[in-house]
């Protein structure tokens, strides 16, 4: 059976209300690698029988990169536009596929008139597993495999969420190891603060190469991420270290979807 993802407009027209709105984000919508993460999230929501919808063409950038690059006008214009759409549909709960969208929607939109219950996809997935809504048979593909989790800054330090992604990963029955710099002391991948959209300033190294060293130290075979930008940076870092042959970079949603036999 083909998996169809309705837009909120579709649902609205049918007089239905989804349990959550899946806020995909720009990377998740347009970047080919990140789209695979988006699809994994959608498959998980579908498998857990969560009635969900997306905004589709009505979704627009939250304004996060503009805000952190100093363009508050552009940010607030984006926010006003998004809030008008979200409030128009009476949205209450949002699950995001990106910690930057998550942080902005959760922390910065309420003051501008957009107050919602906002969850990061790793939090929501962890809850689905804990509530027994999502079944992971026996975690076969990752059983005993060494996995390390790279904390996204805007999920971890930014919003104090270190537990949910790790609890979700625990369902894989893998050999979960921490990097030297983790949780509160986690090292950035180098993409935040609008760095993703510009060349790095002059230095003696790339931040993602520095972070890749932390990964290599652990001997992990899988780098678990929770952010499409971290995913890009870590993938590039692993390639730079010429280890793409034996180390995979995957979002938690992809790992869970694979373990639940959804891919």
């Amino acid at each position, binding site marked *: 059976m083909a998996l169809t993802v309705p837009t909120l407009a579709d649902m609205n027209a049918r007089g239905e209300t989804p349990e959550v709105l899946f806020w995909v984000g720009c990377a998740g919508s347009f970047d080919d690698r990140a789209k695979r993460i988006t699809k994994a999230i959608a*498959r998980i929501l579908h498998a857990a029988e969560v009635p969900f919808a*997306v905004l589709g063409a009505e979704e627009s950038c939250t304004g996060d990169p*503009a805000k952190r690059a100093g363009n508050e006008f552009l940010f607030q*214009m*984006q926010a006003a536009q998004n809030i008008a759409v979200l409030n128009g549909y009476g949205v209450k709960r949002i699950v995001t596929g990106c910690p930057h969208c998550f942080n902005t929607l959760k922390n910065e939109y309420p003051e501008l008139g957009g107050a919602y219950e906002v969850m990061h996809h790793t939090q929501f997935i962890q809850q689905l597993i804990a509530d027994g809504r999502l079944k992971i048979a026996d975690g076969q593909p990752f059983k005993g495999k060494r996995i390390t989790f790279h904390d996204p800054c805007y999920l971890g330090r930014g919003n*104090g969420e270190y537990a949910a992604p790790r609890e979700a990963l625990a369902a894989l029955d893998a050999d979960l190891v921490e990097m030297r710099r983790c949780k509160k002391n986690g090292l950035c991948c*180098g993409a935040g603060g609008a760095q993703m959209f510009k060349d790095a300033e002059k230095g003696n190294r790339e931040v993602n190469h*520095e972070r890749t060293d932390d990964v290599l130290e652990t001997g992990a075979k899988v780098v678990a991420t929770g952010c499409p930008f971290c995913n890009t940076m870590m993938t590039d870092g692993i390639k730079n270290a010429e280890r793409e042959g034996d180390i995979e970079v995957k979002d938690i949603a992809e790992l869970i979807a694979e373990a639940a036999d959804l891919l």
Partner: protein
Amino acid sequence: MAHLIGQLTFLVLLGTAGFLFARRIGQIRRNINLGRDVNRSDRPKERWAVMAKVALGQSKMVVRPVAGIMHIVIYAGFILINIEVLEILVDGLFGTHRIFAPFLGGFYNFLIATFEWLALGVLVACVVFLVRRNLLPIARFRSPEMKGWPKNDANIILAVEVLLMFAFLTMNAADALAQARGLDHYIAAGSFPVSQWLHPLYDGLSNAGIVALERGAWWFHIVGILAFLVYVPYSKHFHIFLAFPNTWYSDLTPAGNMDNMAAVKKEVDLMMSGDPFAAPAAPAEETPAEPAPFGAKDVQDLTWKQLMEAYSCTECGRCTSSCPANATGKLLSPRKIMMDTRDRVEEVGKAIQAAGGQWEGDGKSLLGHYISEEELWACTSCQACVEACPINISPMGIILDMRRSLIMEDSKAPESITAMFNNVENNGAPWAFPAADRGKWTDELSAES
């Protein structure tokens, strides 16, 4: 008579130190108040809790245990030995000797013994810190911004603390010897577990020599403390006072949150109201002469809290050593952002004082003359500096406020950032993809499943 001269000298020294300290506090207060207003007095219960945990309880210091635990020894020593200083003050003013002893009895002996152990702890910790700073290859003490005055400032403070603690122990050693010899004025009081080790050093002195040594060490200790009091507010070491208000006024929102600018909200609300001809909200009775600039170009554009943070920073460098940009050789050092801010607000404050309370400008600004665009654009906004700061300073807040000035006042951005802005504005995404394609993945998914 000699006593009276001593008491008067003490009074004059105390008064002078008090005056100089108060005058300097007044200057710092004025400089901090140059900043913009921000409300940091909401949720007082939480604020007391944060201060108790972070400043009083040093919760973030022990994240790095070696420096953290030694810092706690110095901190505890500083606070508790000040009880002894209180006695010294009373003795100095009234010509008494160990005035608290008769009131406290056996507990007095316990106190003095505790102070002695603490003094030894402080002494050892300060020597270790001097070694760490000057001999060990610890990167954060060797950054470019730590040359000259900042390095000397740290060494002066550590050396003075070593001398003060040594004077304190010498004073006690001489006192114990005087007590043992039954010298006039030296009542039997106190227990001296540490300073007794110094006895062999001083035992050969005559009775007059012992008294002179005790008095000399007493005066050195108290004059040293008064000099320290005057010095501290000119130094990075002012954190010993400001750490407390600085943590009380902490930003209580999640670290990921970046404030929404109220001035921008007003304009956006107007634009979004749908009526392009809508009159702006009724003008206020008094329109300000000049609208406040967007973002921060100079220290007056920062909030008073950010300026307080600049005075609270003790240049430990934990921010810089956890900064991904700094770790990869970029020009940015969050500690330098705080040091530059303090240097600049000092400069502005002095100019205002010289001009009789007016700011006439000096053709310089924090952004440009102290902090470069290259430093600002190296930040990944990862909040590692905010997390690392033992007293909740946010160098990142200043960096992002300065980016706002670059963009919204000067329209200065790297080309690729301008392109990103254009994409967000035109396509609703930071890349040049049409909004209509946002849902494409759903079609792909349907086809794949």
